[in-house]
């Protein structure tokens, strides 16, 4: 209820705001409608509420206008109008006054000549807002072939007496069967009882079978006593068989409806039906008739139930028992309990046993228990399941007794029941163990595992010394569920003494027992044991289970040192380590061998480690790609392709696509490529299009048709334009060139000098940089970077890189010709490399270190995703964010910002490094803001066009350029600085746009020096979210737009949060005038206002400055500005 009040309240508020906005802006209805249509469909609830409230404020005139704009079907889309109108209907449906306005407008519209489709649309609106008042006009369409359907549906929604009367009178007048179908259906749905005689009359006048069906079902909903006979006749005509015309179920529904008012008649009918049903052996009819009988107010439930039981039909009995709550009827419960032992039918017994289990009345367990001896499996199953539900000690004992049975199926049923029964079963289980056969013993062990009955440890442990191998094996498999650390010594002894076949299970139980020890204790316990043992290999799995770096090292060492079985055991252990770090020794083994069977084993191990790991898609991609090189058969290849398909990596898509040419794995490759592409719209590119087209041709699985549809959908929705393009063709260095100087020295060279230097640089490049196996490798001396021929502004680049072991591994990426995103060996602690790669190494003002270490080992591949927009750089290393939107400083001249466009360079730092798979996506920059012709003619000039801060001085660190805006980020310390125009202005018109965040505070300084507190040393015009709750107690002179402390501004003209505000400031001598979003919020004279002291009672020494900068004055909150221009007066 509160919720609803709140909604209504907020709706009222919205209406109020809408009305005010309209008055303030003086918009005409047609402007409001145009504005609203442009915003539909709305992006969110808030916008929807505002837009539709705005629309609703135009009243009947507006709604009629909207309807008048609708086009006949097939010409132009009516989408926006449909949204507007149906939005309107829904919006007002709870508001009586407004709903009537809408309904009246719809009435008026219907009276005009309109296309039929449009009329139907309007009539459908009346389904939402229509009321008794609209019955008349709706009735008018009931005789129209085309509109009668919509009109009768609308009348159904209205649902009043008058609506029913209208439908009925239309029915009396109509001769069209098509129309009558609608009318009869509607009368039934609104349960208009008065129609009964008319419907009965129609039914008796030989209707078509279609009509008959609709009539029967309508009569079943509204009919009274009079209808019983005709409906029975219809049912009998259908030979009491369920069929298309619903005769039988209509008859039954009618009986059910009348069951409490026409008690005697209905009972007679239902009895008769029941006996007919019994004769014809129709279960479903028996059930239905019995249900009618049971639902009668004074039904004798137990007597009826007796009849059902006597019938002996399991289907009949079960469904009656399920459908009716006999548990509340004492006599019936007694009857069921009595019957269960007296009735010989096993069908009946089964049904009743299930009922007892579900209804759990007292004494049920003892009634059911005898049936545990039944030879009939159906009965037995019912008994075990029901006892399990009932629970209790007797049930446990009885079920446990079954475990001694020699029949396997009986034992299984008992086992399932005992697994889920409530209560302590351990003692009872143990007591029957010795007297049970093998199957029973195994079942008991299974229950012990499943319910982790640690108390039965001794029972299980003792079986390990049994001569019965079947039971012994089951016991071995049970140990791991119930051992605790105290049992470790037992387990160690068993491990060394048992036959090989039990070793894996015992090893697992050791791992389970270790689980609750600390990592340190685990290693200690196992190491001590290994040192004493002469069967060391048996303990590798325990080490693997520990999974610590130390444990992995011990196993690796064993693998390298040992031979034969011990070496195999070490390998198996390595592959089973549940820590990603195990991949390093395994991949080292792969790299060092050429033995095919060993490679096959290693590949399986790699696959299983990667599959289990929680690593990022990037890491999985890198290692899967390497694993592919070792794969020995098509199954392994397919598995790797399949896993690559789940990594979500663009390079992985390109990589797997090549395998579509390998017939044996083409399907797996096609599916993998498709999975990657389709789940990422940002991967659309020309290359992706080509791959997907090939996928379409390649796929042959049964779902291929649907997959092809998904591919077409993706391709039609995502433009390939502007996607990733490859910067490296894998074959040669086309598109790359040698390095000449740096961007600044290059800019000072003339074309000839540059060309000569480039030729020389390219020669050096050819010496240092090579293409090998699809990689770009630097293995030269010196520091000559490899540079793209093309220059880039904003972009996203993907690149894989690998350092090689050697002295001082070091490399990096120059963005826009400038060092660098750092790559180095984290082991080089002397130079601080332990912080990891991916930082902006040369930054001095901004962060230069990565957020975390995400490097793989030297000698393994890594992958970067780097995004550079404006002056900011974001770096993901192996899928981890390591540099978060940090400004890249200009290394070549620290006084200027980074170059807007320049080449990308792969850094050479004297050590060997490889790069591969380089993809770049260029990101378009926003169009610079341009003056309108009017402003140009008036003499405005631009201070910020969205691209640079050249006209500004001050804090250019926290004020940054993003997507065409100046964005002030809240600084981590202090209140955020100020940004000033480098020029000074005295009298001017200053225009700009700003967007606030909730509670934001900033200020516009004018005639201010470019330091100090502008509110006093100059003049500050407030910029403030003054509607935020935190500012509830503001002084008037603090409202948005106020000359701070001096002249208050009017409140209420700010746009809603998230929208841009447009403001104009005119400073002309002592007169200041501010217009916000078309409303003048301040118009005053500072000299007048400060004549007798200012209202804040403070000194404002700079108030009457003649001239100064214009500036944004930060107060610690995020604010955006754009389109800034000024005209000097």
């Amino acid at each position: 209820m509160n919720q609803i009040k709140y909604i209504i309240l907020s709706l009222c508020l919205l209406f109020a705001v809408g009305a005010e906005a309209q008055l303030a802006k003086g918009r005409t209805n047609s402007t409001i409608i145009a504005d609203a249509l442009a915003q539909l469909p709305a992006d969110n609830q808030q916008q929807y509420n505002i837009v539709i409230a705005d629309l609703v404020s135009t009243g009947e005139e507006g709604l009629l206008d909207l309807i008048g704009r609708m086009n006949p079907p097939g010409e132009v889309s009516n989408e926006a109008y449909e949204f507007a109108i149906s939005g309107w209907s829904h919006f007002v449906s709870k508001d009586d006054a407004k709903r009537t306005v809408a309904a009246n407008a719809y009435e008026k519209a219907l009276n005009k000549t309109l296309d039929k489709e449009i009329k139907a649309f309007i009539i459908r609106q009346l389904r939402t807002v229509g009321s008794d008042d609209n019955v008349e006009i709706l009735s008018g369409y009931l005789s129209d072939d085309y509109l009668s359907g919509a009109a009768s549906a609308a009348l159904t929604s209205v649902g009043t007496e008058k609506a029913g009367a209208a439908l009925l009178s239309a029915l009396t007048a109509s001769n069209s069967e098509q129309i009558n179908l609608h009318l009869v259906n509607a009368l039934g749905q609104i349960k208009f009882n008065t129609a009964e005689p008319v419907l009965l009359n129609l039914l008796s006048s030989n209707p078509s079978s279609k009509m008959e069906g609709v009539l029967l079902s309508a009569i079943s909903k509204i009919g009274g006593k009079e209808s019983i006979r005709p409906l029975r006749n219809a049912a009998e005509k259908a030979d009491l068989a369920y069929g298309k015309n619903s005769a039988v179920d209509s008859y039954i529904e009618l009986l059910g409806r009348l069951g409490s008012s026409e008690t005697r008649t209905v009972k007679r009918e239902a009895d008769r039906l029941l006996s007919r049903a019994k004769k014809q052996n129709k279960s479903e009819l028996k059930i239905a008739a019995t249900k009618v009988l049971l639902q009668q107010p004074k039904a004798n439930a137990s007597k009826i139930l007796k009849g059902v039981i006597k019938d002996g039909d399991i289907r009949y009995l079960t469904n009656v028992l399920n459908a009716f709550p006999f548990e509340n009827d004492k006599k019936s419960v007694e009857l069921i309990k009595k019957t269960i032992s007296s009735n010989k039918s096993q069908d009946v017994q089964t049904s009743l046993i299930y009922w007892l289990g579900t209804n759990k009345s007292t004494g049920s367990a003892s009634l059911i228990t005898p049936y545990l001896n039944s030879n009939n499996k159906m009965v037995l199953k019912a008994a075990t399941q029901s006892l399990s539900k009932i629970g209790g000690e007797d049930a446990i004992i009885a079920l446990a007794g079954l475990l001694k049975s020699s029949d396997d199926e009986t034992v299984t049923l008992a086992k399932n029941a005992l697994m889920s029964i409530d209560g302590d079963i351990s003692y009872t289980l143990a007591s029957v163990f010795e007297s049970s056969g093998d199957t029973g013993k195994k079942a008991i062990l299974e229950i012990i595992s499943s319910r982790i009955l640690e108390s039965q440890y001794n029972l299980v442990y003792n079986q390990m010394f049994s001569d019965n191998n079947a039971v012994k094996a089951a016991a071995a498999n049970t140990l791991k569920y119930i051992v605790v650390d105290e049992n470790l010594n037992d387990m160690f002894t068993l491990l060394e003494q048992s036959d090989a076949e039990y070793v894996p299970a015992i090893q697992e139980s050791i791992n389970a027992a270790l689980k609750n020890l600390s990592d340190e204790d685990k290693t200690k316990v196992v190491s001590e044991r290994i040192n004493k043992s002469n069967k060391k290999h048996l303990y590798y799995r325990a080490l693997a289970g520990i999974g610590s770096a130390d444990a992995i090292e011990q196993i690796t060492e064993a693998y390298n040192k040992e031979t034969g079985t011990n070496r195999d055991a070490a390998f198996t252990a390595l592959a089973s380590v549940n820590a990603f770090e195990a991949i390093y020794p395994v991949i080292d083994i792969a790299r060092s061998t050429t033995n095919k069977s060993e490679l096959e084993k290693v590949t399986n191990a790699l696959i299983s480690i990667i599959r289990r790991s929680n690593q990022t898609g990037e890491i999985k991609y890198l290692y899967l790609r390497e694993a592919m090189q070792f794969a020995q058969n098509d199954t392994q290849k397919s598995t790797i392709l399949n896993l690559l398909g789940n990594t979500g990596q663009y390079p992985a898509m390109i990589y797997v696509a090549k395998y579509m040419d390998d017939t044996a794995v083409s399907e797996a490759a096609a599916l993998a490529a498709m999975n990657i592409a389709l789940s990422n719209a940002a991967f659309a590119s020309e290359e992706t299009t080509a791959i997907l087209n090939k996928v379409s041709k390649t796929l042959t699985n049964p779902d291929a048709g649907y997959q092809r549809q998904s591919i077409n959908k993706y391709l039609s929705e995502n433009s390939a334009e502007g996607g990733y393009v490859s910067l490296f063709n894998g074959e040669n260095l086309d598109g790359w060139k040698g390095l000449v100087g740096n961007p600044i020295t290059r800019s000072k060279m003339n074309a000839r000098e540059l060309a000569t230097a480039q030729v020389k640089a390219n020669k050096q490049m050819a010496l240092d940089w090579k293409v090998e196996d699809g990689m770009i490798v630097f293995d030269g001396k010196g520091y000559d970077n490899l540079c793209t021929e093309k220059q880039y502004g904003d972009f996203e680049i993907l690149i894989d890189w690998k350092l090689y072991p050697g002295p001082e591994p070091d490399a990096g990426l120059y963005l826009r010709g400038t060092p660098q995103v750092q790559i180095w060996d984290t082991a080089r602690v002397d130079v601080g490399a332990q912080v990891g790669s991916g930082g902006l190494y040369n930054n001095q003002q901004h962060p230069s270190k990565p957020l975390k270490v995400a490097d793989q080992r030297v000698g393994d591949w890594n992958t970067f995703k780097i995004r550079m927009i404006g002056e900011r750089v974001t770096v993901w290393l192996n899928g981890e964010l390591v540099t978060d939107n940090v400004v890249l400083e200009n290394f070549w001249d620290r006084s200027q910002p980074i170059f807007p466009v320049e080449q990308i360079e792969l850094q050479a730092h004297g050590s060997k490094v490889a790069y591969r798979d380089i993809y770049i996506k260029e990101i378009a920059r926003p169009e610079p803001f341009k003056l309108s012709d009017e402003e140009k003619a008036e003499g405005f000039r631009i201070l910020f066009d969205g691209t640079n801060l050249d006209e500004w001085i001050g804090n250019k660190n926290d004020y940054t350029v993003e997507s065409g805006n100046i964005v002030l980020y809240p600084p981590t310390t202090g209140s955020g600085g100020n940004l000033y125009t480098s020029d000074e202005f005295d009298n001017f018109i200053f225009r700009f746009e700003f967007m606030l965040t909730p509670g934001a505070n900033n200020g516009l300084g004018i005639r201010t020096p470019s330091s100090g507190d502008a509110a006093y040393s100059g003049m500050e015009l407030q910029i403030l979210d003054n509607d935020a709750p935190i500012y509830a107690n503001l002084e008037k002179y603090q409202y948005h737009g106020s000359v701070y402390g001096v002249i208050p501004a009017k409140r209420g003209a700010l746009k809603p949060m998230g929208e841009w505000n447009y403001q104009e400031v005119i400073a002309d001598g002592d007169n200041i005038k501010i217009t916000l979003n078309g409303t003048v919020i301040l118009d005053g004279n500072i000299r007048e206002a400060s004549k007798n002291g200012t209202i804040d009672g403070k000194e404002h020494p700079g108030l009457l400055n003649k001239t100064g900068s214009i500036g944004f004055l930060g107060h610690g909150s995020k604010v955006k500005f754009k389109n800034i221009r000024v005209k000097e007066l």
Partner: protein
Amino acid sequence: MTSRRQFLKTMGGVTLLTIVPRNVLGKGMIAPSDEITKGIIGVGGMGRSHFPYDNTRVAAICDVDKNHLAQAASMLKDKVNEYHDFRDLILDKNVDIVHIATPPHWHGIMSVEAAKAGKDIFCEKPMTRTIGEGIRVREAIAQYGNIFRLNTWFRFDSNFYGLGSTVKPLKKLVDSGMLGWPLKFTISKHTGFDWKFYWVGKNHLEPQPVPSELDYDMWLGPAPHKPYNAHRVHSTFRGYWDYDGGGLGDMGQHYIDPVQYLLGKDDTAPVKVEVDAPQQHPDAVGTWRSITYTYEDGCQIVLWGDEYGDPNTPYISGPNGNVYKNFVCDIPNWEKKLAEFPEPAEQNTNFLESVRTRQKFALNEINGHRSCTIVNMGLVALQLNRTLEFDPVNEMFINDEEANRYINQPMRAPWSI
């Protein structure tokens, strides 16, 4: 599981189940000696995947698209009866179980008709397109005593999406009370569930000629008549309110049904649904940011669309602990503690056995209707774009007549349910 042959073998000397010809038993009764047969309505993509379900034989197929029918028939080894009108398939004496694999706007009517004809029913999810149709199906099954199986299975089988495990151990954990109460379930990309927002409709469809192989009028059936466009039918119908509800309609019951089971709320429904979504087009289903359901006791189910929602959010959150994707639980030593509790009760998950013993299948017209109600509550709230309160006893929205109109929606004559 015992096969039918073994079952009969072990029955050996028992005289109870004498072999009776089908016609003696009357319509719908399964002669125990007989192979159980099924008729499949709708043999496009989904229906064909019903061919191999369980150990049953396909006896009849039905489709309103001649091409679908011909293709499907060619995929079957034996000759089967082919129908255009589902009512004929339902009345086919050779059919024991009716499989409904049509778009959801038909599920209610077909289930009720099949129930009346005494057939057992195997119905695709979502169970019905409106809450009212679901109530009607539940009533019909109670009235005619059929066995009904809804075709989603995660509450008893298969790895459950983001959980990376079956639901059973999770049920045990929830029942143990170790997580505390009330619980909040979050179903989002981050917890391992994809809402498939590619099932959105197109806003303005140009009328196209109806292809000759398709009986469009019969395809629409109870749905309002709208000009034909290929995007409305076959594999893209989920994008239109008239037939389904987009990704929520498609995946909702898969994801939500196990939650109902886990919460032990199979006999009730949430009392409130809140949506955060753009206004929906009257015809085409759009996307949404979040849908939140709240039960009377404070338990919640939160759905986040697309990438929305906190990436670190647990799948289940309770006062004493959380369960994250891949069954990561943050209660110390939880596995050991949990073992002290009994296994969750066994569920009847063998449909054919349910058909034989007339015991309800694990996911049936009662709990299936409840979980489908949650899907449908969300769809109504999306279309109205407002918070709705629901009365799970009377199965109506509270003080919101407009919302209640979505519970029972008018059908194009002559169809009714």
